[in-house]
């Protein structure tokens, strides 16, 4: 499973992407965010405020209850500010 970070989350976590293999009980977006927060202090601080984190699974916006599977491309980023 590949995880991408963008903008402020990328800077806070200190990397643009990482390859991860979470345990089988990580089944949803919500599970994954909790699991990622355990990876480092930076992860924990960057992902602590759920209103500041958006998640896309395979390049589509995802809800906390949506499934994540091995092979997925997961992206975590702050609320967008384009246009």
């Amino acid at each position, binding site marked *: 499973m590949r995880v991408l970070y963008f903008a402020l989350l990328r800077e806070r976590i200190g990397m643009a992407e990482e390859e991860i293999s979470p345990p089988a009980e990580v089944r949803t977006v919500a599970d994954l965010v909790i699991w990622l927060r355990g990876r480092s202090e930076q992860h924990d601080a960057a992902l602590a405020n759920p209103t500041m984190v958006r998640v896309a699974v395979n390049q589509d916006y995802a809800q906390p209850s949506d499934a994540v599977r091995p092979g997925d491309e997961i992206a975590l980023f702050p609320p967008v500010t384009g*246009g």
Partner: protein
Amino acid sequence: MTVRVQREDFDTGKELDRMTAGQTQIGAVVTFTGLVRDFADAKDGVQRMTLEHYPGMTQRQLETIVAEARHRWPLDDCLVIHRYGELMPGDRIVLVITASAHRQAAFEAGAFLVDWLKTKAPFWKLEEDGGQRRWVEAKASDDEAASRWNR
């Protein structure tokens, strides 16, 4: 129907002429051009903006929303260009052109696409002003503007 995500500048007049040349069913064309403004809380330094984006998702999501606009309004044509990379105040960021037989469709579809770009397109603005750097925060007013299309 065209979507382009690019570093280069664009020419609104040229895109407009290309869309309407030889067409006689289009009665109304609306263009929206978004420009970099001076930063509200600027200090004295040189101002610069960097637009970061999520390339794969941007193109894919833009094509989806353009298809949605076509489904909602009778559009003859539609173009979205969004730039990324380094930009200075006065530079063009985004272009949306909508063409229809009817003016209301062109205006509404244009406003819909711009509202969507503001709230859903995966772009992030970093403002730099001399030594200061600051990620622009999302505005609740943009979410409100976008929510009027949820019907």
